[in-house]
């Protein structure tokens, strides 16, 4: 626990002899390059996609600037020959399937990461540092290579089927090209993004608080629910966001591991920009995804700040 002097409202007492002139505002000019870079690198692509999503589809692929919501309409409705709108759940199913895959991936990562992170946090400092390093190790290898490695592990004559054959499974077994394979690769890929923030929050947790909970007649369950979870929630939430958000846009795992049998949002978007040549539609799906993610993040952020200020 930090010293009490660090708490309490910080009152701004910067001397204000005179308002600084616009040209003398050093902070503004000093930070301008950073702001410009951030704006160009982050905001501009999103603005372009937003503009494309309301553009008109070109006759031979591509698009023409304009304002046309048919890209968005196409997510739910199909335009018949005669121009009537027909509800088609085809893309909605893809969106829901993607949400489900991302959700399950997040839950599995959470369930595995919490005990792993807890275990790492309990190790002596040197081993702890080594284990954290090991957790980040897969990031040093290209993601495509790692997915191919998984294809080898699970595929026909791969280590896992061979291993099972050794114990009597029939030959020629393969675990590839299904939802399970997709999920396995997704969990593997995003696991570090979950473990690291969860580890950080568990490590920060003061062990005497857990003892205090036991001391005050709390059993394991009460201690977990009322002390450990609330205090590590920020780490769990950031881990969940870090896994869930990129899972929504995953392309490699569903197409390579799942064999592309089950279309996901990421592949759908990619298809519109390549083979399908319907850029406004692809951009509209991407924007829908973005808005959805932003709403979720805003809700979480609002809840977090509301909790902080109920003091």
């Amino acid at each position, binding site marked *: *626990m930090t*010293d*009490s002097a660090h*708490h*309490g409202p910080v009152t701004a007492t910067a001397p204000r002899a005179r308002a600084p002139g616009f040209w003398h505002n050093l902070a503004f000019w000093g930070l301008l390059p950073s702001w410009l870079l951030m704006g160009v690198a982050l905001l501009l692509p999103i603005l372009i996609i937003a503009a494309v999503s309301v553009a008109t589809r070109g006759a031979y692929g591509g698009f023409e600037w304009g304002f046309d919501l048919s890209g968005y309409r196409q997510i739910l409705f199909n335009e018949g020959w005669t121009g009537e709108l027909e509800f088609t759940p085809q893309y909605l199913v893809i969106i829901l399937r993607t949400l489900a895959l991302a959700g399950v991936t997040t839950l599995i990562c959470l369930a595995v990461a919490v005990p792993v992170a807890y275990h790492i946090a309990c190790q002596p400092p040197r081993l702890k540092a080594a284990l954290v390093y090991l957790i980040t190790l897969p990031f040093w290898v290209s993601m495509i290579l790692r997915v191919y490695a998984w294809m080898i592990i699970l595929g026909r004559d791969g280590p896992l089927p061979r291993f099972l054959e050794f114990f009597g499974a029939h030959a020629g077994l393969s675990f590839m090209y299904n939802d399970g394979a997709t999920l396995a690769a997704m969990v593997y890929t995003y696991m570090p993004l979950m473990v690291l923030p969860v580890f950080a929050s568990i490590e920060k947790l*003061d062990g*005497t*608080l857990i*003892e*205090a*909970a*036991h*001391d*005050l*007649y*709390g*059993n394991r369950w*009460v201690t977990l629910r*009322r*002390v450990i979870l*609330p*205090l590590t929630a920020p780490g769990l939430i950031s881990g969940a966001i870090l896994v869930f958000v990129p899972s929504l846009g995953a392309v490699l795992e569903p197409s390579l591991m799942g064999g592309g049998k089950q279309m996901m949002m990421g592949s759908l978007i990619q298809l519109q920009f390549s083979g399908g040549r319907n850029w406004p539609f692809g951009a509209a799906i991407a924007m829908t995804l973005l808005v959805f993610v932003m709403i979720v993040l805003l809700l979480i952020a609002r809840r977090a700040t509301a909790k902080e200020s109920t*003091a």
Partner: protein
Amino acid sequence: MNQKAVEVIGVSKNFGSYQALKSISFDIRSNEFFTMLGPSGCGKTTLLRMLAGFESPDTGSILLNGREVVEIPPHKRRVNTVFQSYALFPHMTLEQNVAFGLENLGWQRSRIRSRVGEMLERVHMSQFATRKPAQLSGGQRQRVALARALAPEPEVLLLDEPLSALDLKLRQAMRDELRMLQRDTGITFVFVTHDQEEALDMSDRIAVLGGGEVQQIGTPTEIYEEPVNRFVADFVGETNFLPVEVLEAAGGMATVRTPFGQLIRVSAPAGVTKGAATLSVRPEKINLGDQAPATAFPAQVVNKNYMGGYTHYLLSANGTEFRASRRNASREGDTIPVGGTIAAGFAETSARVLLA
């Protein structure tokens, strides 16, 4: 009222090859303010954590109100702890912190509410009931930690150096407050400290721990005035160790020859035998100048430290150096110059032969 709240029987604990506790035994009486006093690293916290249930002894047993508890987990012991770092739940308000234990015990809502109010009132924190720990000062957190631990009316309250993080003024005030709380509630307090002054001030009884063993158990006066060995005499208060020769010892008394050439009869613990021994005389019990008794001897002032209320002297007689302090009872009190000679002496009842 002399029931035993806690019995520690032959408890030992090793950490690796390090022997933290070597077969310790003692009792704590119901409703007493019991202090475990010892230098840092002597195993006080380990012992306290065993009473709470966070640590288990390698050998021996621990009884709480006559019941063996070594196998019982912390949340099933009617014992509460005031942690050194307070360990208040940072995400809960003060009310919620104090209510936590009561909720786990399954108290009724209305009863919890009134008990929480009562406890916060008692530690003068009512007006902050809905605040969180981060918005409090150290002293205030201390009070809440006390309220939280006392609320469930534990059979024994454990306190691990609860005052060491507070500043000096606050510490003195909290000593009185703790003592008062203990008297009012009648709950057995087991208090751990390395501060001998705290121990002497607050305790009904003190156990002096050192080297993983209980060195002595007794009332503050017994510990201070009749230390059984060199460790206790040295750790609790200041003292002079004078090399003496025991000529005869029997029945708790001994005749000894001091380095100043006197033959005196002083109290001695059982086990003292003829031969070389150590005599302990506290500096404030060596009287100087006109305050010196008839048996006084001349001593040289080697050095002195004027402290205002009293003066500490380093004296030398017959080649033996020793310390004496003198209360400056009048304005002219401190007139003895360094290098000068002064009469020094002590009553026979003020000295004590020590074991080892």
